């Protein structure tokens, strides 16, 4: 029983972090039907910057997200203006090609500048845990979870309680309708891409503590994130959270009762099973044709 509770606790902690990482991907897809395959590379880039800051200055990796988040907001905005805006209106497959190219460029630059070796930020609390009864909560996971949930809370607030968020949601649900009330499609898309990229600012900093990484790690991350958003329903933020928690739990429960090597496979089996029943994903919208 203790094993089960421990596995669930860890699964939820990891799921929260995955949710943050996937939120940017699903937000960008929701607003502009663009699959940002470079989101994994953004995470690894931020992890590398965070590791470098921690290594050079000793700044706590999770606190370093205060630097990396605005950095990624700016990089996302630039990426949209310089690259993505040029393929607006093309099919989503064009965005996959373009952002995959961007991911390869980031990987190449990181290989040249940081080298092709595994890195991991290991602050003082890295091996410490909080203990509640017989359940242990690794401090790094807890801090990462708290940061992730905090950022998701801010994202939720911005999307639901501010005019910026309403404009983004309006453009997500009905682009033509949004244009008719004066929402600028290009402005909203640039903002959504920048916000989506900024989530990788926090996500990447957390990643640098929780997982060892090297430049090519982005392949593993993007496949995980795509799995999460497809399971949850492309474009749905609650879906990304649900998909992330399922991935977290699948990993820890399989690792506890089976073996670590099977944990990712189990997650993909869950995706396949869900998609057989709900092709649009858990929270994916299948609107009446006349609803929008």
């Amino acid at each position, binding site marked *: 029983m203790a094993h089960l509770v421990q596995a669930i606790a860890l699964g939820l902690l990891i799921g929260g972090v995955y949710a943050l990482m996937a939120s940017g991907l699903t937000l960008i897809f929701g607003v502009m039907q663009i699959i940002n395959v470079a989101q994994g590379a953004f995470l690894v880039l931020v992890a590398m910057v965070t590791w470098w800051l921690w290594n050079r200055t000793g700044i706590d990796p999770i606190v370093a997200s205060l630097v990396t988040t605005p950095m990624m907001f700016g990089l996302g905005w630039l990426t949209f203006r310089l690259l993505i805006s040029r393929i607006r209106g093309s099919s989503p497959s064009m965005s996959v090609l373009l952002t995959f190219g961007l991911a390869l460029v980031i990987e190449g630059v990181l290989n040249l500048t940081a080298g092709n070796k595994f890195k991991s930020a290991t602050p003082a609390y890295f091996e410490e845990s909080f203990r509640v009864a017989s359940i242990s909560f690794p401090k790094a996971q807890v801090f990462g979870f708290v940061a992730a949930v905090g950022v998701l809370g801010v994202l939720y607030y911005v999307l639901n309680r501010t005019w910026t968020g*309403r404009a983004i949601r309006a453009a997500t*649900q*009905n682009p*033509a309708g949004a244009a*008719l009330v004066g929402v600028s499609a290009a402005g909203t898309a640039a903002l959504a891409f920048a916000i989506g990229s900024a989530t990788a600012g926090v996500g990447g900093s957390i990643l640098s503590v929780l997982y060892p990484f090297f430049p090519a790690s982005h392949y593993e991350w993007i496949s995980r994130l795509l799995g999460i958003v497809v399971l949850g329903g492309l474009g749905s933020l609650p879906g990304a959270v649900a998909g992330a928690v399922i991935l977290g739990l699948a990993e820890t429960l399989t690792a506890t009762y089976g073996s670590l090597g099977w944990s990712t496979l189990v997650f993909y089996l869950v995706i396949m099973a869900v998609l057989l029943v709900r092709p649009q994903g858990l929270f994916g919208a299948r609107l009446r044709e*006349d609803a929008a």
Partner: protein
Amino acid sequence: MLQLKAVVAGYGGGSVLQGVDLECAERTITCVVGPNGAGKSTVLRVISGLLAPTQGEIRLDGEPIGGRAPDEILRRGIAQVPQSHALFPAMSVQENVLMGGYLIRKDRRLLRERLDQVEQRLPIVADRARDHAGNLSGGQRRMVEIARCLMLDPRLILLDEPSLGLDPRGLAGVAEVIHELNQAGTTVLLVEQNVRLGLGIATHGVVMEGGRVRLTGTAAAVRDNPEIASLYLGGSPTKAGDSPWTNASRPPSHTGGPGSPPTA
């Protein structure tokens, strides 16, 4: 108030509008009728800025507005209620209506005032405030769409097929709202497949065919035109030579607006 001169526009390859001339005078209700593919909805899209004209002029009070962005057109007092449902289905009715005031979002007092006015005029906004727009019936959605466009207190409202998919009760409601808005001083330009309904509530009629305006006049004159009656209203066939289409062969610059004498 609104003038279109020799407007050409289209999507991709061909031109849907092939030199449209149209005028709307202040405080009138102008109804554009015509067969499918005549370019009726496209006329509204070029006016509201959703589609840029490739040639010709669009003027509002004498100022050119052709090819301007939709938000700029909105700021000038022209709001469109499109044919396909344009609400945000996962947002509440109130949020949808508030989004209509996106351009005045910084003036909270004005936004509140407008919302109160809209709620008074269209009770559904307050009655169903918390419901998701996607859960409303066709007629209710139409009302919310109209409510949303009223948030900017537009001078000119463009309505695309307001009767589409509505039951008789919904139809009557929409017709009543259009009439009330016009009584309150709003100019209305509507496109309608339901010729009887459209010309019934309009003060002026415009017949389009093949991307051009074929006939303009008062609504009554257009409605009573024998060929229109035979084509759309099931009336008696007309004699050769009485055809309204022959009127259209005159130079476009003579195509009268609602303010001009009926040509039918």
